[in-house]
């Protein structure tokens, strides 16, 4: 492989220098996801004029502003709707959507469902920090049971939203969930997601020490990052333990969040099907009327 080997060269290629350093808090996971995306784009060697980023509102949606490429900063929850428009206008573009958990699962839930159902060719990178961080720590639909937020001061009693399960059920082509503390698997996953024709969802569990960690007494940055290591488990390990493990082991892993690639299939995307439809109709049109087979 030729090209960039160090982070310094990577920054020069992909970063919009004047915007840096970021507005993110100390210990936030969003910058890490941005860096993984850079590495994945660098590995793929895509032309940055052919990549468009789209985002809604929230901490995660600041990310396209830091990238030296075209980007849209759109209304709350509608990032996927705008991305669908870009893709419809010119299917040659690679569309990458940065969205948060409140943006994608909460407010833009229906847009997400129908984009996944139609299998539109885009990569959705959902950065899940369990809370609406930018607006002051309101409860997000993905927050685990019992977590404390400004709108749930005595603990959350609503069951959390598993967005990866939803995407699998809707038949998205690529669904994966990763944490931010292990670099190699997420970079590979983002690469596969961008290459995949059809809808791909990548969920990242990003720490939010300011809004989530502080309220939930998860400690400082170090302890908060360690919480994500202790409370997640690889999907393959979970399956093995559920099959062969003892009762005690099963009890231990019950509360943990599974990580890994959940779905990797190859279904035709919406625009492929649409092209076929247009071709079929054109063929029909070119035949003279009344002619029989």
């Amino acid at each position, binding site marked *: *492989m030729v090209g960039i*080997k160090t982070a310094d060269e*990577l920054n020069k290629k992909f970063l919009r220098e004047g915007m840096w350093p970021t507005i993110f808090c100390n210990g936030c996971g969003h910058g890490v996801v941005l860096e993984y995306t850079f590495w994945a784009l660098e590995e793929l060697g895509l032309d940055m004029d052919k990549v468009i980023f789209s985002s809604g509102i929230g901490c995660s949606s600041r990310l396209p502003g830091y990238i030296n490429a075209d980007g849209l900063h759109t209304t709350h929850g509608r990032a996927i709707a705008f991305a669908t428009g870009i893709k419809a206008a010119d299917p040659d573009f690679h569309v990458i959507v940065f969205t948060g958990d409140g943006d994608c699962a909460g407010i833009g839930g229906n847009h997400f469902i129908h984009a996944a159902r139609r299998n539109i060719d885009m990569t959705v990178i959902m950065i899940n920090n369990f809370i609406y961080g930018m607006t002051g720590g309101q409860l997000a639909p993905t927050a685990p049971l019992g977590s404390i937020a400004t709108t749930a001061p005595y603990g959350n009693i609503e069951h959390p939203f598993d967005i990866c399960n939803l995407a699998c059920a809707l038949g998205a082509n690529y669904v994966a969930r990763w944490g931010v503390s292990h670099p190699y698997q997420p970079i*590979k996953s983002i690469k596969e997601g961008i290459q995949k024709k059809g809808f791909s969802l990548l969920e990242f569990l990003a720490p939010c020490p300011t809004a989530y960690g502080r309220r939930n007494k998860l400690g400082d940055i170090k302890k908060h990052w360690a919480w994500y290591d202790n409370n997640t488990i690889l999907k393959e390990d979970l399956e093995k333990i559920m099959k062969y493990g003892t009762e005690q082991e099963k009890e231990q892993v019950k509360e943990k969040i599974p990580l890994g690639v959940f779905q990797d299939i190859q279904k035709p995307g919406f625009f492929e099907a649409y092209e076929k439809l247009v071709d079929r109709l054109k063929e029909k049109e070119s035949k003279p009327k009344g002619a029989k087979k």
Partner: protein
Amino acid sequence: MIEVREDWCKGCNICIDRCPVDALEESDILNRRGIRPPKLKEKNDCNFCRLCELICPDLAITVFPDEKEKKPVKKTLLTPVGGKTK
């Protein structure tokens, strides 16, 4: 050898916490924000695994493999996906 962009560092100390060989520490100098950016210890076992570079939320760290100093270490992964390309 590592290079830290001091005005970009926010002082989360994740690099120090996560270093697998415990080669980093806080430096003595204060930057513009009033925090101490990381630096390599004087005696360190850094094998250029580049975890700190990949995990830094502010993209402030760059790792350069030292050409002069030869250490008896295993060959490390220099590309994020382990050098494998399809």
